[in-house]
């Protein structure tokens, strides 16, 4: 992990306004993403984990500028894309591609697979139909699919195969970053492993970076190099995978790890139960967002928001238990 990062995000914020009443006046806003920063190097996989609604998918869409950020910088391949206009951003999209969660919805059911997976090539490279077809066949081969898929329709394929096709489309313009938003959550467990291994093989071949969004810690442990934990729009902890799983510092991370299913429940060890519901992001708790459910809550947690600091070397954590002050 050397050289400039492929992606660097600083102080990223996304606020969605809420409109109420007949006059559609702005009644408030949801801070879906609140001052988030991280970076990803070439050939690295950063996993973004958290419960549903914590803003992890929003981050994925912000990074690709499918949503416009409210504040912050997004530096992709050396360029700050947070303020680019639509056309400038469009021509920059070849650097970063996306794989979506729903393999049934992300392929247009009316189009032949060949058309779908070469659509980005069409947008960025002036190639003839024959050359584009050849590129499509090569892409299919890379994701382990036969060439005859080019002329077939999405409904003829299973979920795992469709996710391979979606990956072929993402790879078509040789991006340096792929944002994978829960790419295996919709798949059977046996197929999940195949797709994850394919992702890892492709990374070894091409040194591509992944921003891998997931709520499944088992999957994250398999594919991630580094892991960032989110709660209600904020980063709670970020560390190497091994460090994070072996010695999680944040009580939320500890609870997440304790709550994830393991093959042998007796081997689980310490169990930290987490109680209550995720609070509303419209009206989040003061101070540390997690204080309403934290087993170690202190008066300070209610008043003051902890900042993300190094709790240990290379191990960032936002918790008053670990902050020096």
């Amino acid at each position, binding site marked *: 992990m050397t050289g400039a990062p492929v992606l660097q995000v600083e102080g990223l914020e996304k606020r969605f306004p809420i409109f109420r009443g007949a006059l559609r006046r702005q009644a408030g806003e949801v801070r879906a993403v609140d001052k988030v920063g991280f970076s990803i190097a070439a050939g690295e996989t950063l996993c973004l984990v958290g419960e549903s609604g914590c803003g992890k998918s929003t981050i994925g869409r912000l990074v*690709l500028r*499918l949503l416009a950020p409210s504040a912050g910088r997004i530096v992709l391949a050396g360029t700050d894309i947070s303020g680019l206009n639509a056309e400038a951003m*469009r*021509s920059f*999209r*070849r650097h970063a*591609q*996306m794989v*979506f969660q*729903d393999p049934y*919805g*992300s*392929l*247009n059911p*009316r*189009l032949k697979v060949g058309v*779908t997976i070469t*659509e*980005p090539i069409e*947008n*960025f490279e002036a190639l003839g139909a024959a050359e584009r077809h050849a590129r499509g066949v090569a892409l299919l081969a890379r994701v382990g699919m036969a060439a005859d898929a080019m002329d077939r*329709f999405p409904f003829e394929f299973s979920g795992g195969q469709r996710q391979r096709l*979606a990956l072929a*489309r993402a790879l*078509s*313009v040789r991006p340096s970053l792929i944002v994978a938003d829960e790419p295996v959550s919709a798949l059977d467990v046996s197929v999940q492993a195949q797709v994850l291994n394919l992702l890892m093989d492709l990374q070894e071949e091409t040194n591509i970076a992944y921003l891998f969004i997931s709520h499944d810690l088992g999957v994250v442990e398999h594919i991630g190099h580094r892991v960032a934990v989110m709660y209600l729009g904020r980063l709670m902890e970020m560390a190497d995978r091994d460090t994070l799983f072996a010695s999680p510092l944040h009580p939320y991370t500890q609870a997440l790890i304790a709550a994830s299913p393991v093959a042998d429940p007796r081997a689980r060890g310490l169990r930290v139960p987490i109680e209550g519901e995720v609070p509303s992001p419209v009206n989040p708790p003061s101070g540390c967002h997690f204080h309403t459910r934290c087993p170690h809550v202190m008066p300070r947690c209610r008043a003051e928001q902890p900042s993300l600091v190094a709790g240990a070397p290379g191990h960032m954590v936002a918790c008053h238990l670990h902050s020096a002050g």
Partner: protein
Amino acid sequence: MPPRIDVRRFVRRNPTIVIGAILLIVLLMIALLAPLISGDPQRLAPIDRLRPPSAQHWFGTDNLGRDVFARTVWGGRISLLVGFSVAAFATVAGIGIGLLCYLSGWIEAVVMRVMDGLMAIPSILLAIALVSLTQASVATVIIAITIPEIPRVTRLVRAVMLGVRERPFVEAATAGGSRPLKIMWRHILPATIPPLIVQATYSAASAILIEAGLSFLGAGTPPSIPTWGNMIAGSRVFLSSAPWAVFFPGVSLAVAVLAVNILGDGLRDRLDPRLSRRM
């Protein structure tokens, strides 16, 4: 994709499409072949007026001695021409305006308010107003009926569009660097076609009825052209003495509208993915 369609199975599964299509084709053939199968609809024969149906005049004659069969056959040309033209023009205009809304939210806001306004006016009133402002001709009638029909198509296109543009494959196309125009053409437009085909049949049916209504009121095509509407209007005074002069154009009108509606219903059932299975 199944390369061959089993005709008998298709007929069994989609009886309404087949019945509607056959009826419509028969009506079309009659209208197209009018000069071959009937005489001059305008030939006056005052001696033979108000004659009941006979071997010589299959549908009888009207108060001016004109052959009702010939007039009914020729009148079908106008009805079907108006029906198909209105359906075609309204669909094309509706797609154009609807897709324009896709490209700009500002245009969308303005256009949809205009469409709401148009829909608030009863279409037959608007048509009467337009026809009386200009010269009576078939083209005027078609334009007058098309304009109030456009908002229905536009709203349909917009409704489909709003649904499709939230689908992940549209976001995927954006992420893949496709321009909005390309996304519209490749991903949005094809999704609007099946509901539009159904809507076009309903537009055609209502256009045939409105045309007949306009002709009946004398606000439609010039009286020199026989249409079902002005035939009924001209002969209604003689309803008790010569019912055939009203009956035949009336039945033809009903059959034409029924045929188009049956076809539309069948297509709706067939094209709605929630109701139909693959052939």
